[in-house]
């Protein structure tokens, strides 16, 4: 926190190199949120840049009442929500996806034994995450990739901790169910 404060003070004093450092420190987090929320690959980079421009302009108003990472995450999350709203893309589509049947979730290219070919497991998992409801995608990503706590995720998304936990459990259960419906477990989880 002290390092973050020192870095922000340098930026506010006009040190542009300090902001480059700031970008390097938080671009991973921003890209995780933007890439998970925005399907249109062409807009992701631009949107990520906009997040940092917004952060730069609003830096003087940051009061260190939360962790910098939480604040950065919140800016990115709400920037994406604004984008989706502008594009009329519903992020909060139904969160009842876990009730889908296997027929609903199985992909087209299945082998005679009913399972799809596993070529790149990581890519398949990523594809299935992309098929989850938006909030699930963000929560799974922030928890597993950015190692954030329920409280931090809740602060970013303005959700109660209990809801974050519940969504996370449902998301992982749904993801596992969808993957196992398409691929042989021994190939998938090797």
């Amino acid at each position: 926190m002290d390092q973050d404060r020192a870095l922000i003070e340098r930026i506010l004093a006009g040190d542009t190199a300090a902001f480059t450092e700031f970008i390097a420190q938080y671009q991973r987090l921003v890209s995780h949120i933007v890439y998970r929320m925005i399907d249109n690959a062409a807009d992701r980079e631009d949107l990520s840049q906009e997040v940092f421009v917004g952060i730069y302009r609003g830096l003087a108003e940051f009061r260190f009442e939360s962790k910098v990472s939480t604040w950065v995450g919140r800016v990115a999350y709400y920037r994406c929500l604004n984008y989706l709203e502008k594009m009329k893309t519903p992020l909060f589509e139904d969160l009842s996806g876990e009730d889908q049947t296997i027929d609903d979730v199985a992909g087209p290219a299945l082998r005679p034994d009913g399972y799809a070919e596993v070529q790149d497991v990581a890519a398949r998992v990523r594809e299935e995450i992309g098929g989850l409801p938006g909030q699930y995608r963000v929560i799974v990503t922030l928890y597993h990739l950015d190692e954030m706590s329920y409280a931090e995720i809740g602060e970013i998304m303005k959700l109660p901790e209990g809801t974050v936990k519940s969504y996370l459990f449902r998301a992982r259960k749904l993801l596992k169910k969808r993957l196992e419906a398409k691929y042989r477990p021994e190939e998938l989880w090797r």
Partner: protein
Amino acid sequence: MAMTHLNDEQFQEFLDGGRQSLGERLAQHLDGCPECRLKVAAYRAMYRRLTNDAGFDLSVDFAASVMRRVELAPRRNPWLWVVYPAAALIAVVTALYFFVDLSGTFGRLGQTISSITGMENAVVNSLNGLLEGLNLKPSLVLAAGGMLVAFALLERLFFTLRRGKAMFFA
């Protein structure tokens, strides 16, 4: 002893929070149940995939691109936000004090309030005392207020032009 298997939530609780999050009875079941252990292994493998996920690469010159945009959208000095209310306050107070007959403006109600509270006299006396104490002439105060207002407007214009916005009062 017959016992039901762990459910999905319990597998996840175990992987997130460790053995103690399950309680002794469920933990013992897990130790001795091959079926549950297989399911835990599947969840564990999925967790590993989620933790090692990649594919979020921004362009190599991402930071440079942001910096270019930042230069076009300069950050506003926070203290400048004080200038606007201060300029407005000085302008209003000065104008009221020197050019407006408050008793006429507010009429009978103003006079009544003033006579009851004595506030008008107190304010006028305070301002007079302040000006005399600081050895300031009213024209100097007016000039200072005017300069502050002009500075605020110029800063606004300069900032807006640098941002490349067409609207002056965006």
